[in-house]
């Protein structure tokens, strides 16, 4: 019953009550956006336990920076930016780690958690997209993840990533070329 009343609240109301220490209000924010964050983080990093940790960090960072949210942009955009920043930091960290300690590429980090009720076809689809994304250059991967997994338009992607529209368009076209080659091999 109480949970239902939180579902009716607007983003700004939830932010305000979360700032007052209301656990359920922040819980509602997590419920609303956890799938969006999962698509970004897992799309960029792969479906591994590390992605779950980054996902957690996204919401922890959001909680601590809620007072900075002025409500000028959508809360989803604000969360998406945090998710992208943390994911890119993790990619950089992995690159450093692998270049220092291992010859293996970071694609090795990719694991699939297959749930029992997933059909073989769906599992395969998810695996192909996951592998294709992980083979893309990270600067293209983020553009593709935003568009393909989140359904953002080019303009929205440019806004979220703070990039000029032309840059997003040219990266998208290059990503498409790279993706063609990758998919041919899969």
């Amino acid at each position: 019953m109480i949970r239902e009343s939180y579902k009716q609240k607007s983003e700004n109301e939830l932010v305000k009550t979360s700032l007052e220490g209301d656990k359920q209000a922040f819980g509602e924010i997590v419920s609303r956006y956890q799938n969006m964050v999962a698509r970004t983080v897992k799309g960029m990093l792969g479906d591994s336990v590390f992605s779950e940790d980054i996902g957690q960090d996204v919401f922890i960072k959001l909680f601590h920076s809620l007072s900075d949210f002025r409500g000028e942009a959508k809360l989803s955009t604000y969360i998406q930016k945090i998710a992208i920043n943390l994911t890119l930091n993790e990619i950089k960290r992995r690159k450093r780690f692998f270049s220092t300690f291992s010859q293996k590429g970071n694609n090795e980090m990719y694991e699939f958690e297959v749930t029992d009720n997933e059909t073989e076809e769906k599992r395969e689809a998810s695996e192909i997209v996951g592998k294709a994304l992980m083979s893309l250059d990270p600067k293209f991967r983020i553009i593709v993840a935003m568009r393909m997994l989140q359904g953002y338009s080019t303009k929205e992607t440019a806004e979220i990533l703070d990039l000029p529209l032309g840059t997003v368009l040219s990266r998208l076209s290059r990503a498409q070329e790279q993706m063609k080659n990758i998919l041919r091999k899969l």
Partner: protein
Amino acid sequence: MKIPELKDLILRSLDKDSDPEKESAMLEEAGVTWKFSEGFHEKVLDTIFSAGDTVVRKIEFVRNLNSVFYRIALTGVAAIVLLMISIFVIQGSISLDSFLGLGDSYDESIVYLLTGN
């Protein structure tokens, strides 16, 4: 969805003239979606709010420590003031010697007290 169809859909979704929302929904329908594991929501809230409790407990501890410190400090200052007043009343003046309890003693008597000669 068959694999060749899926590959087509992936490439189509990257076309600048495509409708990303529609293509993304189609991919999701085909099984291309990722979710966090069960219990993610609870884990996040527990991490955030148990850390919050720790912060509150720390603040309370510091606040209590401050009030205890002030009480001890005030008692100490009051004791020193009383001691100085009593010294002034007994000795008629306040000096380092009287403060150390040597106000009435002559040098010889101190030597006698220390050496026994």
